[in-house]
């Protein structure tokens, strides 16, 4: 992850002139890296950092973009996803931002990326040790809704005094009959720090555990960084008689037929017709390509999948 003050033109698409490599100045990047080192050293602990004003509003990924800017190098390949998709506004803009200011290669393929900046999802394809996952975090403090005093929250983290978070789970069961928290599901990192996994669906929580990739979390507005180093145990909180469980769908993806991935419900017409599709667009594309290749080989067309595939692309 070495960075140099100026981009070397020629290898990658040329960076826009007048900006430092990856937009942020070198001092700021060093400051963020120092905080990141501390965050990696204390898994799950929220490290304060001097968050900079970025050319996009708070809530759009200012924390994630600063982390990415601090760690990205010229040899890196960047992938940006928003709700699993490479094609939404947030993802397209942040990808273009780094293509312009750093001149790095970008990709939509999970396997090709060395840095993946994400909002609200972890890719379905298992990550490797060579990859870094950067999360955009709106609210790093998992106790925020239960304990409004920041000082008290810090004390509770310092003393590992986490009874309060169980009160929230208890209330969930009281009101909904089961733990109804479906995203931003609180976890204990490395048996010690209570952390917010950012608003990923709880479906993705098991992927946090013992993940080979380095996971970095940046909250721009709240000015906090934290990290889950590779192969760190991450436990989702629960009750003994209401164990943690991920959601399952009765449907398969309408495009690729996957039953393992996280599905989005999409309303396709005014009559309220719905279809379920993979939220991870790259995973879905890859599966469809595989299916097509198989069909070519066998010469049989998988009618249903292809038909809905066309429909899916138009909406």
């Amino acid at each position, binding site marked *: 992850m070495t960075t140099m003050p100026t981009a070397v033109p020629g290898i990658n698409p040329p960076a826009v002139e007048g900006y430092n490599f990856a937009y942020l100045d070198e001092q700021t990047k060093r400051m963020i890296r120092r905080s990141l080192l501390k965050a990696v050293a204390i898994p799950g602990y929220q490290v304060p950092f001097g968050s900079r004003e970025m050319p996009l509003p708070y809530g759009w990924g200012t924390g994630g973009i600063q982390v990415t800017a601090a760690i990205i190098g010229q040899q890196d390949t960047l992938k940006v996803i928003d709700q699993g998709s490479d094609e939404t506004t947030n993802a397209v803009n942040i990808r273009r931002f780094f293509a312009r200011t750093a001149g790095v290669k970008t990709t939509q393929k999970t396997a090709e990326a060395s840095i993946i900046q994400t909002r609200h999802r972890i890719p379905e394809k298992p990550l490797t040790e060579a990859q870094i996952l950067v999360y955009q975090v709106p609210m790093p403090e998992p106790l925020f809704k*239960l304990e409004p005093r920041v000082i008290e929250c810090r*004390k509770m983290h310092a*003393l590992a*005094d986490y*009874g*309060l978070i*169980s*009160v*929230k789970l*208890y*209330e969930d*069961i*009281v*009101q909904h009959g089961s733990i109804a928290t479906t995203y931003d599901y609180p976890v204990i990192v490395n048996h010690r720090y209570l952390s917010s996994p950012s608003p990923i669906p709880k479906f993705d929580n098991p992927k946090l555990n013992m993940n080979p990739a380095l996971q970095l979390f940046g909250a721009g507005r709240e000015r906090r960084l934290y990290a889950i180093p590779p192969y760190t145990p991450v436990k989702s909180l*629960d*009750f*003994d*008689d*209401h164990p943690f469980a991920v959601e399952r769908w009765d449907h398969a993806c309408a495009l690729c037929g996957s039953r393992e991935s996280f599905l989005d419900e999409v309303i396709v017409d005014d009559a309220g017709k719905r279809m379920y599709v993979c939220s991870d667009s790259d995973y879905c594309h890859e599966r469809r390509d595989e299916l097509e290749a198989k069909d070519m080989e066998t010469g049989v067309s998988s009618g249903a999948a292809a038909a809905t595939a066309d429909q899916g692309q138009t909406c």
Partner: protein
Amino acid sequence: MLNPLLQVRNLSKRYGSRIGCEDVSFDLYPGEVLCVVGESGSGKSTLLSTLALRLQADTGTLHYTSTEGDSIDLLSLSEPRRRLLMRTEWGFVEQNPRDGLRAGVSAGANIGEPLMAVGARHYGQIRATATQWMSRVELDTSRIDDLPASFSGGMQQRLQIARNLVTGPRLVFMDEPTAGLDVSVQARLLDLLRTLTSQLQLSALVVTHDIGVARLLAHRLMVMQHGRVVEAGLTDQVLDDPQHPYTQLLVSSVLPV
């Protein structure tokens, strides 16, 4: 002879040059209810907060005998141990139930919170304990999922008491537990407190300005004026034969019914 649960010697707390409480010494024994009476501004609540380690004492010593029987110096206690003590062996009933309850969560969660704080992770058991405690403090158990705000003042106070007693503490601090309740509700609450303290062998330190409450609840009484203890003794003794002029004034100003 029993060891005193709480041993207080020459305890002082000042707010700058003003006196909060000055030179207070007493022993509290297991199973004993001690009332602190006095008018507004006499330092009762300051004394209680200092004893409960919510305020930093300026001078004096404060020792507590733990369940294991060893004496703990409370004034030099570390924060984690203070929290653990507060949670497992002590309780604090606030004057205003809103200060002692969590308004955003149900009655059951309020009672269950201290249990979850000490590591209970079984929903069914937490709920069963909460239900049991609700019936013990004479609350309708079918309202376990209602928010505290939907309860009346007296019910909220009983809920707060349940929340404080659920971990089986040995010492409970109470700051005017019956203030702001109407007389009939007060009577029921006092009756409940008396039953619970005798059943559970609780020691309690109760601050009140109401002589009637003191006579009903307390084994012993301390009278405070201007931050100092002016008279102390058995409740009946102090109230029937007050020695200090201030105590005499206090006793004679109770309105006859």
